């Protein structure tokens, strides 16, 4: 089962490598991992998408929590939450037909074209993983994908619940 974990930890050198190392050392799966400092520069927040049954997930949460740098960890998938991922994708747009079609698909998915080259469009789209997959598949049927990059998901709990000090 897919889970999304949010981790609040000290923004220290090496703290990310401890998390990544732990996952490989204990043979836990990482689907995606994103990290950045929070508004409080002394803290970093990591979002990890992983897979595992309840027993594995319990171990992951406990093992991550055991790391000295980690302040808090929560499983966002336990409750209702908002989950987003950013996609930047560069596609071939050589003639009027393909430009029109790419623009139309982008509008339908509420993405935006952020750069135009002589023969390419670069599109930005945010959403959950499913929406991004659908967008990429639709584009692939219409034109050639030159390259794409995805941020991995970030997530936050709905309502009053918060991950903070």
């Amino acid at each position: 089962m897919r889970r999304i974990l949010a981790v609040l930890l000290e923004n220290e050198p090496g703290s990310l490598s401890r998390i990544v190392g732990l996952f490989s050392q204990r043979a836990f799966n990482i689907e995606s991992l994103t990290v950045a400092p929070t508004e409080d520069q002394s803290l970093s927040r990591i979002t990890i998408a992983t897979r595992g049954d309840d027993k594995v997930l319990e171990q992951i949460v406990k093992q991550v929590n055991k790391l000295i740098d980690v302040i808090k960890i929560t499983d966002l998938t336990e409750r209702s939450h908002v989950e987003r991922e950013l996609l930047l994708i560069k596609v071939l747009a050589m003639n009027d037909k393909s430009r029109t079609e790419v623009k139309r698909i982008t509008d339908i998915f509420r993405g935006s074209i952020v750069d135009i080259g002589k023969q390419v469009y670069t599109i930005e789209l945010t959403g959950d993983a499913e929406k991004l997959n659908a967008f990429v598949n639709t584009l692939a049927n219409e034109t050639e994908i030159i390259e794409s990059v995805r941020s991995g998901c970030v997530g936050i709990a709905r309502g009053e619940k918060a991950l903070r000090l």
Partner: protein
Amino acid sequence: MTKKQFTGAQMVVKALAALDVKYIFGYPGGTVLDIYDALFQQTEVEHILVRHEQAATHMADGFARATGEVGVVLATSGPGATNCITGIATAYMDSIPMVVLSGQVPSTLIGDDAFQETDIVGCSRPIVKHSFNCRVVEEIPNIIAKAFYIASTGRPGPVVIELPKDLLMPTSMGEFHIETDVKMRSYNPSIKGHHKQIKKAVKAIYEAKKLVVYAGGGIIIANASELLTELVEKLDAPITNTLMGLGGISGTHKNYIGMLGMHGSVEANKTMANADLILALGARFDDRVTNNVKKFCPDAKIIHVDIDPTSISKTINAHIPVVGLLDVVLQQLLDELTATDFKPNKEERANWWQEVNQWREINRVSYVQEGDQIKPQRVIEAMYKITQGEAYVCSDVGQHQMFAAQYYPFAKPRQWINSGGLGTMGFGLPAAMGVKLAFPESHVICITGDGSIQMNIQELSTCLQYNLPVVIISLNNRSLGMVRQWQDMVYGGRHSSSYMESLPDFVKLAESYGHVGMQINHLDELEDKLNEAFTIKNRLVFVDVLVDEKEHVYPMQIRLGAIDDMWIKKGVKA
């Protein structure tokens, strides 16, 4: 007026002194020469020069296990640091408080593949509780204080500190300030057990008809053996110890049913298998205990008390988890039992003990001494008799380790020092040296074999330099006994690389290092000669005992079976 300025090297030594460190174990080299220079100019911290950095870590480890204090290691960058890896892993697996100070090339050279540069923080990451890089000279004292705090609290473990050379030299000076009362927002080990869980545990104890206490190394670490004994007596339950937990309750206590697990006693494993409630205290259901987890104690409810939540329900699901310091939780359990006026149900207990005693009669652990060839078990028994069960026994890894665990009933905690988790050959001698340093008046034995002793034999030289007269008892079977045993039992008797066909003359070897060497080859001289070895107080004695090379360790769990599926001797199942 400006405050007095210190180099980083001086700060390191001042910080260690402020933390009451008496000994550090290490080996000098380029990047830590400033620390050695600072050590030379003071008297508070004594440095013990080993012959190989691995031995420094084991020595610090033995010192820590025997005293409960943090063991401190100092090594230079590169090979000095990487030589510490095995010792760090050993301490990590057995939850031993240790701080390893490692040199590093100057900050400006880090990442350049400079001479003797290794990313020791990266190398050691999976086997440390935590690690630190120092970037500013003034940080050094508080980083050391934090390292000690982390190493010694919660579930203890090793902490590595990397010190770049430029921070240690007179080129960067700073004021010395140390905060020994450490507080960290990201690290607060839980102390008390949750009161609801305590109540649940006590309720389960009331309902149990067949209760067994399964106590591990956590009891030793938490100094909780008196409370454990009190609890066992109150419950009138049988108790078994893990390899790491030996001495947690006296090995001669009437409720004690021996060690459990792979080479545990039949009664311990049978009692576990038939229990309806297992009270697990500071133990982690290691694979050397459980055997096949799918067949593990099917009828038992499990209360699992541990300071480390990751140990709970990792391999075996706990019905009632309790996270907390063992001494605190044991007191909570005792208080709750007293408050509810607990008395064991006499009839139920009598029935349970009757079953347990039946298993006791099958066979505790036994061997047959036939002929003149000395059985290794006999040596341990003689050793027990002569030292009246009061020696510190520091073991290497192999058959001798299991024989010592089986035939030397430990009266007290911290008397039995062995590498249980990692199983590090070469651990015994340096660990014994660390113990002897802490307790010079006590008998300190290194029980070893012809394989293990050669993995750190160079430390005989250190023993002479610092006058550490440990008694080395080597059960010499001219082979790697445990490997050979497995080859006999599992690999069709094909002794692939388990012979040691070019053994040195250990007596002459000991003598060449300036010690007393002694060989015992006949059964009738065993006790007299061992006795003689223990009467020599001020010199190290190396006793090379030639034992029966064919002897196997029994009982032994049958692979992939349940906890109590065991061979009690060749071809005989329990």
